[in-house]
């Protein structure tokens, strides 16, 4: 995906993506102090993002994330100036119909699987995309 974004002349001066292999917490000090936006997109109730948003927010980055435990606590403490949350909470997830997908997810899944802009998809990942809810 990074190569596709870099090769697209229409958009490569506005959007780039970099993969950092073998990222561990011992290398975290290299990135924590230099970021503008700290993305914490996780499924509420599935996997907590633990203390990482605290570390990033304490060093001055904005927090963009879903309504999960730590994100909501930081939101309650610091307010809307540094935190932007969106999406459903865990209890909303329990009530919604997981077999329905949003139109945007459907569109992006189509782009990945059918248009093949980002190359061929691994069969295991293809199953994952086809069974992925909401």
């Amino acid at each position, binding site marked *: 995906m990074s190569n596709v974004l*870099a090769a697209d002349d229409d*958009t490569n001066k506005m959007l780039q993506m970099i993969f950092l292999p073998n990222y561990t917490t011992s290398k975290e000090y290299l990135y924590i102090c230099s970021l503008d936006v700290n993305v914490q997109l996780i499924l509420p109730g599935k996997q907590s993002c633990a203390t990482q948003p605290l570390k990033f927010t304490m060093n001055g980055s904005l927090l963009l994330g879903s309504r999960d435990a730590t994100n909501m606590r930081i939101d309650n403490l610091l307010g809307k100036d540094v935190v932007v949350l969106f999406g459903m909470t865990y209890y909303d997830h329990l009530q919604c119909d997981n077999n329905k997908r949003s139109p945007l997810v459907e*569109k992006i899944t189509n782009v990945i699987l059918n248009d093949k802009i*980002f190359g061929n998809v691994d069969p295991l990942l293809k199953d*994952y995309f086809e069974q992925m809810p909401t």
Partner: protein
Amino acid sequence: MKGDNTFLSDFDLKSTIFEAYLKRVTPGGRHVILLFYVISKYLELKKLVKDTGKKITPENFPHLVPRVIFMGGMSRPGDKLIL
């Protein structure tokens, strides 16, 4: 990309937003959510190209901010993707 000195040379790094999603790669596949986020941004920009017929550059669209997204991760041995 590795060892490419011209990478990000077109970017005005002072006005660029640096975003990061740095997490351990888990069987739940939470990095996929970031991929969806990046693709949605990419499709927005491509739609803008289609509508206006211009390349997306800071000169043509001064109200847009350049964006660099980092994704980091490492998996544990023995992890399998949960379906």
